[in-house]
């Protein structure tokens, strides 16, 4: 579902393919509902070893992130989110097509760009990749209402699947949309042109070996 709140475009889980059709790269959006942290080993377990995720993320969101959590005093197994920012999404690129196909995840949140596997998945299955401003882990943690469940704890704090309920989680900058357009790849074309120009300016200045 999509809601407009004080001018903010908020995706509310469950999110459908239809909900995402007007969302384009460069848009700034927000998220309400279910967001599960999911990174390297969880992707490998699902894609390479065929293990099913212990939490259903169909039409929901995942967050490439490994948080700092703290056990809530007086409880057996409840945790609070202390600090949770995105990790480098590119590490999950090799798994993300299969992962999206198998799980039906709708919104992938992380940091930096992803590549052709994810573009293909977003276009084919109707999903998006967004960037949460990296290094802004306390902002993100305060937008987590509570941790509802956690699984695969044996992987340690960063790799555990922390299943969060979030409220106006963002800002999320859309980096791959359902057309498969990729903000970072489009930016890279510009960056590379400028880089070549910069090199040509530097070369004549650094001829220190005479």
């Amino acid at each position, binding site marked *: 579902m999509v809601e407009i709140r004080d001018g903010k475009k908020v995706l509310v889980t469950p999110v459908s393919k239809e909900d995402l059709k007007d969302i384009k790269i460069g848009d700034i959006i927000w998220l309400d509902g279910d967001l599960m942290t999911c990174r390297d080993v969880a992707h490998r377990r699902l894609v390479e070893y065929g293990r099913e995720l212990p939490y259903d993320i169909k039409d929901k969101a995942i967050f490439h992130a490994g948080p*700092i959590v703290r056990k809530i005093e007086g409880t057996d197994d409840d945790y609070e989110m202390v*600090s949770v920012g995105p990790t480098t999404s590119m590490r999950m690129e090799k798994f993300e097509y299969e992962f999206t196909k198998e799980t039906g995840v709708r919104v992938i949140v992380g*940091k930096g760009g992803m590549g052709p596997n994810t573009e293909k998945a977003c276009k084919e299955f109707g999903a998006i990749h967004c960037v949460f401003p990296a290094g802004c882990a306390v902002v993100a943690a305060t937008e987590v209402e509570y941790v509802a469940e956690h699984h695969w704890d044996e992987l340690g704090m*960063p790799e555990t699947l922390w299943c969060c309920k979030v409220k106006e989680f963002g800002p999320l900058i859309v980096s791959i949309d359902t057309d498969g357009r990729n903000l970072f790849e489009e930016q890279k074309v510009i960056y590379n042109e400028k*880089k070549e120009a910069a090199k040509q300016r*530097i070369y004549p200045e650094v001829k220190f070996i005479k």
Partner: protein
Amino acid sequence: MMKETEIKKLTDMVADFVGHIGKKLPDDVVAKIEELGSKEDAALPKVLYETMTKNQSLAVELDRPSCQDTGVLQFWLKCGTNFPYINELENLLTDAVVQATFATPLRHNSVQTFDEYNTKKNVGKGTPTVWWDIVPNSDTCEIYAYMAGGGCTLPGKAMVLMPGAGYEGITDFVLDQMTSYGLNACPPLLVGVGVGTSIETAALNSKKALMRPIGSHNDNENAAKMEQLLEDGINSIGLGPQGMGGKYSVMGVNIENTARHPSTIGVAVNVGCWSHRRGHIIVDRDLNVTCDTHSTWKFEA
């Protein structure tokens, strides 16, 4: 004081400092982020800088690590041979990391290689990383502490160029890494470039370069000139905050260098993310401490 009491004091001091650098950026980084943020006028980079600034105030207000990735702890020591705790230092740093891990709290970031399990204490074989520079006849110890996060560690690269490649080859090496890996490493970056003879000399130089203050320059005139050329060059690419486009790309470029074999040019790049969590303290023989990176840190035993 009994020696045990003193060792505990030094351990507590380092643990407290480590916790502090996880929550508060050094003065030079704060100033540079503010400066770069104020120069952006497009909507997206402005929103990003606003979120970054809000995050740093929330971290202090809520007393939490500002970034969840509190890294692998790395210490570079310049330790006097007469510093009274030189023998205990390495064990004490490990104890301080464990202590800070639970007190701060820090994320558990030490995975034993080959056995592939997280120690859940933030220390493991060879971590925290400790590099020693021994200073003859001195009785003080300088400690650089650095949180080497995954994101800023990933773009790290070293190689040995043939002299024919020249400093133009170094230029290519650094700039190519910025548009491939650098943009994912949380720009604006601090770029550390190491030049030396082999990969490890270049690599260590590149890490030491990241410990230098933003805006400082290499003593060598040509190296300082190249720092400026690279800084202007990378800025002209316009990676912007988070690599999503903007007027600038970097907080600075620092080069550290050592001599080379006539047949080789060792070169390495290490980057610090915008959340560049490094600190520097100087401890004397009586455990009086001064800190020149964080005006916000005061230690009370």
